[in-house]
């Protein structure tokens, strides 16, 4: 029986090459999209699931509460972990991890490593990172020892045995011995590192890890005993903190509350900052997009199948008259759809495999390189069958319900059965398409706005060189700057502790309010030299910028931005001039107010910023240089750099590129939406093409008669397209509020954003209309231009 069904299905597919092509192509594209997104979502959800103890591992995080704010940190101070382990028997083990950058030197080779972990020797007990050489117990026990990953070991020592080999860190000051070799950390680990240095090393290098309760910087993880209740443990932590540092917290008026996060929540749902972070919102967005793209393809199939149902009507009648049950016919038609979707499945798996490399690139990480090794094929087959059933069930029910008498009498002509449904589905497709088109336009409009908006400082032609590792910067910065200024092509050079778009420190500061009281708060700060304000072209609104002529400026003067002025309750910038400040041991007066400039991405509003002169903290130097001189200047500055930091590694970048890097994620998002929008448009067009070509065939006779009666080609075009234009108009009405709402959600993340322009929706609607008209025209033209005598003769 099934053989008979398959035979018929196969012959139908071959006979109706055009429609089969449209159906299979549509389903293939839809499924490929779906498969790729499925792998992406699965990968994202798989983070940290490779740890055997994953259900018993918890991350300790800290809420730091000061009089003015609450900081939700992902880190703890060094003593917290070991003390929790000592005080609570249900804690089996604890590990502290500190992720950092390091400069590794081996002979004359220098390597910048940005994925270095410093960790306790318990790391390998708690987590399932695989050691190949060395033992979990001993590998990280001693100071100045390290465990390398396979790829790092290969990079440093080639094929030689790395065990016992040494390398230098911190510009040759420290020698580290390799005591272990581990497998590379899996891509789906929220802890990214290429080597682990023993935590004992930090202690030996002068860090106090047992006493410094207020010095934050350690990720801390606990392994609980089987069956231990984390919530109960969490409730006991406030008392624990009180007993250890209660008086200190009170004295500093800074309170720490510890919380426990399940390991499986750390990557995806934790709201705290992290080096490697997932986005549950993106998971939702992509899952929805995958479903919608697949739905468009399914709708294409349903529309075409129901429109063409009459072609199969006679077969249904005959089969019923020789004794077929209705259910048997339903099953037969479902089999045909399943066959189609299995075809599409095979093609989709192949296509997904081909598209994996560019998809990995787009996602920014290696999701998979061989689709057959991901263990998802079973799921894909399941999806394919589900798609086949979903697409097939309605047409199958419609077909198998035909009454044999009606069909076989020959009085049966194309009915309007399912016309309403078809129209509804076409509208649905266009709603998705228009939302995606409008979405793409709004995303790109916003990104354009981000790049072109005046940030309040000059970001072009600003070269930045990092002078990290200069000993005694306080004495040398002036000379260094002078030498850089002497390089031909340099028109300005300024030192600071931070530059726009990069991390800046913050400090617990006291500033005088209007009523004379000192207000304490945690405020961002820049340490700058005398030229910073001038060179970055930042406007001074009141008072003056720093001046080398004023002797007290170097220690007792502060600049603030507008945000500080308003946050302290002053109404005019002038009012804060001359007020007192107390910050990190320096006391003095505020001498000037600068206009707000966006020193962070435009996603954030400008927050309060204080600026002081503190040469010890200088690291990046900003050098103004015209593009044509850039190469020469970089070479010149490198020579100066090498004189001052001989064992360092010369790094430079341009402020404008670097600042825009903050929007890389948003550009990636834009690209993905664009890709999906194009696919959605393509699929919807494909469906329309099939539907229209069928309608045209059905109406060939009508078109012929109309032409004989004097209709022009244009009349006929209008006749056939009016229907679709109406549907698009309805789709536009539905899509506009939907797209507006969705894009508003996305735009909300930006402190500086465009107003959604009304014409975006009109433009999206126009695109849809143009596509529909083009599709209709091509198909209709053929019919409209044929000699009516031909089409009428066939009757």
């Amino acid at each position, binding site marked *: 029986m099934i053989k*008979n069904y398959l035979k*018929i299905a196969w012959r139908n597919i071959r006979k109706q090459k055009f429609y089969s092509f449209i159906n299979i192509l549509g389903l293939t594209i839809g499924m490929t999209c779906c498969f790729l997104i499925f792998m992406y979502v699965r990968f994202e959800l798989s983070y940290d699931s490779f740890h055997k103890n994953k259900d018993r591992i918890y991350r300790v995080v800290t809420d730091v509460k000061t009089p003015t704010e609450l900081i939700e940190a992902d880190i703890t101070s060094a003593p917290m972990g070991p003390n929790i382990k000592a005080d609570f028997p249900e804690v089996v083990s604890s590990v502290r991890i500190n992720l950092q950058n390091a400069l590794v030197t081996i002979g004359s080779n220098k390597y910048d490593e940005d994925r270095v972990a410093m960790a306790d020797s318990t790391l390998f007990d708690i987590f399932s990172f695989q050691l190949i050489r060395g033992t979990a117990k001993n590998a990280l026990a001693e100071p100045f020892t390290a465990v390398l990953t396979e790829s790092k070991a290969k990079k440093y020592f080639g094929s030689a045995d790395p065990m016992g080999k040494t390398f230098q860190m911190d510009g040759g000051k420290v020698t580290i011995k390799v005591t272990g070799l581990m497998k590379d950390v899996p891509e789906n680990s929220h802890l990214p590192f290429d080597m682990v240095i023993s935590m004992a090393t930090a202690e030996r290098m002068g860090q106090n890890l047992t006493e410094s309760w207020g010095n934050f910087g350690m990720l801390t993880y606990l392994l609980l005993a089987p069956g231990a209740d984390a919530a109960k443990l969490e409730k006991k932590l406030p008392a624990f903190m009180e007993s250890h540092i209660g008086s200190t917290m009170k004295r500093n008026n800074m309170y720490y509350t510890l919380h426990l996060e399940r390991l499986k929540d750390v990557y995806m749902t934790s709201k705290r900052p992290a080096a490697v972070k997932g986005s549950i919102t993106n998971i939702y967005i992509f899952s929805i997009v995958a479903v919608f793209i697949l739905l468009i393809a399914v709708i294409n199939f349903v529309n075409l199948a129901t429109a063409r149902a009459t072609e199969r009507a*006679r077969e249904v009648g005959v089969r*019923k*008259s020789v004794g077929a049950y209705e259910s048997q016919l339903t099953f037969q038609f479902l089999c045909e759809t399943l066959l189609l979707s299995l075809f599409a499945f095979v093609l989709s798996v192949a296509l997904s495999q081909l598209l994996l490399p560019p998809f990995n690139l787009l996602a920014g990480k290696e999701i998979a390189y061989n689709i057959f090794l991901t263990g998802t094929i079973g799921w894909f087959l399941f999806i394919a069958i589900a798609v086949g059933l979903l697409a097939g069930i309605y047409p199958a029910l419609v077909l198998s319900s035909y009454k*044999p008498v009606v069909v*076989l009498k020959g009085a049966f002509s194309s009915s309007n059965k399912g016309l309403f449904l078809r129209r509804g589905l076409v509208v649905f497709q266009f709603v998705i398409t228009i939302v995606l088109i409008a979405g793409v336009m709004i995303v790109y409009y916003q990104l354009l706005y981000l790049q072109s908006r005046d940030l309040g400082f000059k970001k072009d032609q600003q070269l930045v060189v990092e002078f990290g590792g200069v000993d005694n910067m306080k004495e040398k910065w002036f000379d260094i700057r002078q030498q850089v200024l002497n390089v031909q092509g340099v028109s300005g050079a300024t030192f600071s502790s931070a530059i726009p778009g990069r991390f800046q420190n913050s400090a617990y500061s006291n500033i005088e309010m209007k009523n004379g009281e000192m207000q304490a708060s945690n405020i961002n700060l820049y340490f700058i030299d005398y030229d910073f304000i001038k060179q970055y072209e930042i406007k001074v609104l009141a008072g003056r910028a720093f001046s080398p002529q004023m002797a007290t400026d170097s220690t007792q003067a502060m600049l603030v931005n507008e945000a500080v002025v308003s946050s302290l309750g002053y109404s005019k910038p002038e009012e804060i001039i001359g007020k007192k400040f107390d910050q990190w041991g320096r006391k003095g007066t505020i001498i000037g107010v600068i206009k707000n400039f966006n020193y962070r991405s435009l996603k954030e509003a400008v927050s309060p910023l204080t600026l002081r002169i503190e040469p010890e903290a200088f690291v990046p130097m900003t050098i103004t240089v015209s593009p044509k001189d850039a190469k020469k200047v970089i070479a010149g500055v490198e020579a100066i750099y090498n004189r001052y930091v001989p064992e360092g590694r010369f790094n430079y970048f341009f402020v404008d590129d670097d600042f825009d890097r903050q929007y890389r994620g948003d550009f990636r998002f834009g690209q993905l939406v664009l890709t999906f929008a194009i696919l959605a448009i393509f699929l919807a067009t494909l469906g329309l093409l099939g539907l229209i070509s069928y309608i045209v065939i059905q109406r060939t006779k009508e078109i012929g008669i109309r032409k004989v009666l004097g209709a022009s080609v244009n009349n006929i075009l209008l006749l056939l397209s009016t229907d679709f234009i109406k549907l698009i108009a309805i789709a536009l009405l539905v899509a506009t509020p939907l797209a507006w709402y969705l894009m508003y959600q996305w735009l909300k993340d930006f402190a500086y954003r465009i107003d959604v322009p009304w014409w975006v929706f009109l433009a999206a609607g126009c695109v849809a209309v143009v596509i529909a008209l083009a599709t209709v025209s091509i198909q209709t033209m053929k019919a409209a231009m044929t000699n009516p005598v031909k089409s009428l003769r066939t009757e």
Partner: protein
Amino acid sequence: MIQLKHISKHYPVGFGKNEILRDIDLRIFEGEFVSIMGPSGSGKSTLLHILGLLEEPSQGEYLFDGEPVHKMNEKKRTQLHRGAIGFVFQAYHLIDELTVYENIETPLLYKNMPAAERKSRVADILDRFNIVAKKDLFPNQLSGGQQQLVGIARALVGEPKVILADEPTGNLHSDQAKEIMELFKQLNEKDKITIVQVTHSELNATYGHRIIQIRDGKIA
């Protein structure tokens, strides 16, 4: 074998109804060859469809081999349909996508017959109708007479008790028509199959034992 009591059939048209058959009483005995005649629109095709369980009467009783068909559920009716009734259409109604062999095989598939038995049955019928050479052709590769031959073969392969033929020769020229009618006669006489045919042709009607005239939905 077939007994109709007070059978009526009407369709709703607007607020009223269109009566096709009115109060038909009819008995057809096993082994009979009956011809139903009447002008276009008199209701003869509808009567045949009711006999063949393709349509349900609006009123009245239908007994097949003494069993009340009008009280059967869909499943039982389909079983009766499969086992006892074969259909032959004016327009042949072969499935275009299937070969001659497969067309004939289809009813057996619905009877869930084992493959080996199916094969021998279809082979027998092909042999008997002399169309073995054509078994792999598709319907559009055959002449009208040949297609109707296949249609009859398909009706016969399930070994029905009765064959219902709706103007079986309506689309054929006279030589082919004669051949088909001879075949029906032979089936009726040799194989003892009950045959009910609807026809316009006086000549074809003479092949049967009895003629039932229908006019305006009534037996005249």
